[in-house]
Structures are given as structure tokens and as C-alpha cells.
């Protein structure tokens, strides 16, 4: 899934993709390509929630106060005591409250239905969500033309072995891996150049 176009101050189109931890390489690469970088596809980089295209008060078919219809159909809105005619300016404040209430309601219903405790219900809810994601139909895969960077540390095995007895080396190594992870983050040159100049002071 492509990341929305809101990463890094609106500069990127979100099409930069890192090799995430779960990413799988084919064939021979898998054994050697142990290192992964995780960046723009991470939840932390996804920016703010995109307001739906149809967010009018009257448009309750696709959205109510900016709440996706997917969330709405999970719950009976009237049970939550939220008025559908609320002003749009309240929508953002109510969203967080809505999420909280919605979660509590789902968990509450599970507790009543299965006669179980709160935490069991939460775990059950989480499992159901994971299961639902697994069952979701996979979108047809297709190759696209991309620029690809494959990067390897020289003597990585040896460095890792040395890091067992040297905690400083381990931290240096992890920080360096982070630098690789930053490749492709944002399209602005200036901040990265500044970072470079800052790093030069460490030499």
C-alpha cells in the first residue's frame, strides 16, 4: 500500500519505500540481506488523518463528522448519544472522544456476549481485527519501474561480532543504520545538508 502524500511537510508524494522489517527478499538475497530500514511507510510518518472528501453534515452516507463510514457501521451511533447534527467545527474534538467511546462500546458488547472480562474482550477484539486484515482480499500485484538502491555494510559480520563486547560500537552501528534508513526521507535537500554539516562537527 502506498503511503499518503503528506510525509515531510507536504514535499513528498509518499512513493519512497523502504525495505521494512517484514519485507521479504527473493531467493538468494534473503539470507544475506538481513538489515532492514523502516521509514516512510511507518505509521509515525503517515501524517495527519486525511479529511474525507465528503464531510458535509448532510452527507451521512459516506461520512459523519469526518468519521469514516467503516467505523460508523460498526456501531449504532444513537447508542453513543452523539448528535448527528453537531457543528463541523466540533468534529475533530469529537473524533477522539468517538474513538474512545466506540472502543469501549465494542469491548462492552463483547464482554456481555461472551461473558468475559475486560482484558479478555480487548484481546479478542484485537485478534478479530488482525484476522479481518488477514482475510482482506489482496490487491493484484504489479511491477512498476523504480530506482533501486541496494546497500551493504562492509565487514558487517565482523562489526556485529565486535559489538558483542563493545556496547559503544553497537550503538554507533545502530545510529549508522538509522542514517541509511533516512535515505529517501523527504525531498528537501537543505535540511539533510544541514544534518550533514552538523555531523561533520563530530569528526
Amino acid at each position, binding site marked *: 500500500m502506498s503511503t499518503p502524500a503528506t510525509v515531510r511537510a507536504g514535499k513528498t508524494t509518499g512513493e519512497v*519505500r523502504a525495505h521494512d522489517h517484514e519485507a521479504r527478499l527473493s531467493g538468494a538475497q534473503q539470507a544475506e540481506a538481513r538489515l532492514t530500514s523502516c521509514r516512510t511507510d511507518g505509521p509515525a510518518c503517515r501524517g495527519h488523518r486525511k479529511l474525507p472528501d465528503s464531510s458535509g453534515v448532510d452527507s451521512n452516507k459516506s461520512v459523519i463528522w469526518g468519521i469514516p463510514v467503516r467505523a460508523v457501521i460498526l456501531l449504532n451511533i444513537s447508542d453513543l448519544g452523539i448528535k448527528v447534527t453537531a457543528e463541523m467545527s466540533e468534529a475533530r474534538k469529537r473524533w477522539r472522544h468517538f474513538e474512545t467511546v466506540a472502543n469501549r462500546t465494542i469491548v462492552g458488547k463483547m464482554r456481555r456476549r461472551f461473558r468475559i472480562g475486560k482484558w479478555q474482550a480487548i484481546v479478542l477484539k484485537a485478534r478479530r481485527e488482525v484476522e479481518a486484515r488477514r482475510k482482506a482480499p489482496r490487491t493484484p500485484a504489479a*511491477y512498476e519501474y*523504480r530506482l*533501486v538502491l541496494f*546497500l551493504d*555494510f562492509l565487514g558487517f559480520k565482523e562489526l556485529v561480532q565486535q559489538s558483542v563486547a563493545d556496547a559503544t560500537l553497537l550503538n554507533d552501528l545502530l545510529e*549508522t543504520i538509522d*542514517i541509511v534508513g533516512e535515505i529517501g526521507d523527504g*525531498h528537501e535537500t537543505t535540511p539533510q545538508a544541514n544534518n*550533514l554539516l552538523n555531523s561533520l562537527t563530530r569528526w
Partner: protein
Amino acid sequence: MVVSYRISEPSAVFFLLNNIALAVIKITGRGFLVRGAVTIGQLYHTEKYVVGPALNEAYRLDSRVAKSPRILIDPDVLEVARRFRSDIHTASEEAAYVEPFLTVDDDGLFFFDYISFDDVTAVCGGEEQLFPNYLKMIGEMVERGLTHSDAQVQNKYLWLHQKYVATRSSIAELEADNVIRVEFPDVYEKIVALPDYREQATAAMEAVARFEATKL
């Protein structure tokens, strides 16, 4: 590690090469070396999967061709840069921005030069005053690599030693009225004072030759 860009993004080539260049210099400055390859081709890259002929090719270049601590760059990136340029650049301008990142190595392959004074300072924006310490760091890595017990490792560092010496010489041989010497006399002095590790390189070459002989 794999990073990919969709090539249809404006200035994708420039941004990727620029980011790689900055990252490689930062990594080298911290005392680590990387090897890799940049290429173009078909790839399926999602949060979970990365697979495709382009990855196979990048991996092949990295593991079989690059050999030394260098990042090879497929020259086809220039054509892609021309085609998917920024709206405010012509094709020639876009290519002119990308070309400085490509240096031809002795074997005819293009690579990103993270060692020379010009590339680190002019192309990537590194500060001239800090370059001597950067080169010193590379020299220390060269020394460690050349004195490694494994001849195959020594062989990789012979390439870096060659680049290190070339960079050191390019500064040391500047005329007295050269802009760099005039504007940055302390930079010149520090670089000239760096060791050339000639003895270590000679010993490493002999060790590599012995190793190669045993393979025959």
C-alpha cells in the same frame, strides 16, 4: 537494505542520489564503509514485500561487481533524470544536476565518489575546514583494512587506499596560488601531513598476490 523510488516522480534520480551521497559521507565520517548499487528496473515494493528483477540486478552489482567499498550507479539513471525532470528544469539542466554524482572508476563503471575533496565539498556541501578530519578517518580505516589478516579484505581496502592517496595528492600538489591553498591554508597543511600508508599497501598487495596464487 533496500530503498526505492518510483521513477516517474519529478527529479527522483537527483533526490535519491543526493540522499545517498549525504548518507554515505555521514556513514564514512562515523568510521563505517558501505558498498552498494543503484539501478533501475521493475520492482514490486510494498510495506511487506520487495521483489523484482531490479532488486536481483542491484544485488548482483553489489555482491559480484562492486567488490570494493563503493556504490555503483547505473548510467541509465541519466536518461531517467532527463525524462522525469523537475518542472522548473530542462532535460539538460536536470542531467547536469545528476552528473556530478557519477564518477567513472578505473574499470569503467560509474560510482559515487565519497572520498575526493571536490565531491565531498562542492557536490555534497561538506565544509572544507572539516575535510582533513574526514580524510584522516578514511585513512585510519584504510590502515586497519590493509593490515587485516584476510587477504580478501585487504584487497577491498587497496581500492580505498588508491582513492585516499589520490585525494591526498590532489591537494598536496596544488600550486601555492591555488584558491584552496589560499583560502584554506590549514586544510592544505593538515591534508599534506596525513600518512600515505604506502608500506601497508605494499604488504597488502603482496598478501593478495600470494592469496591469488594459491587459488590457481
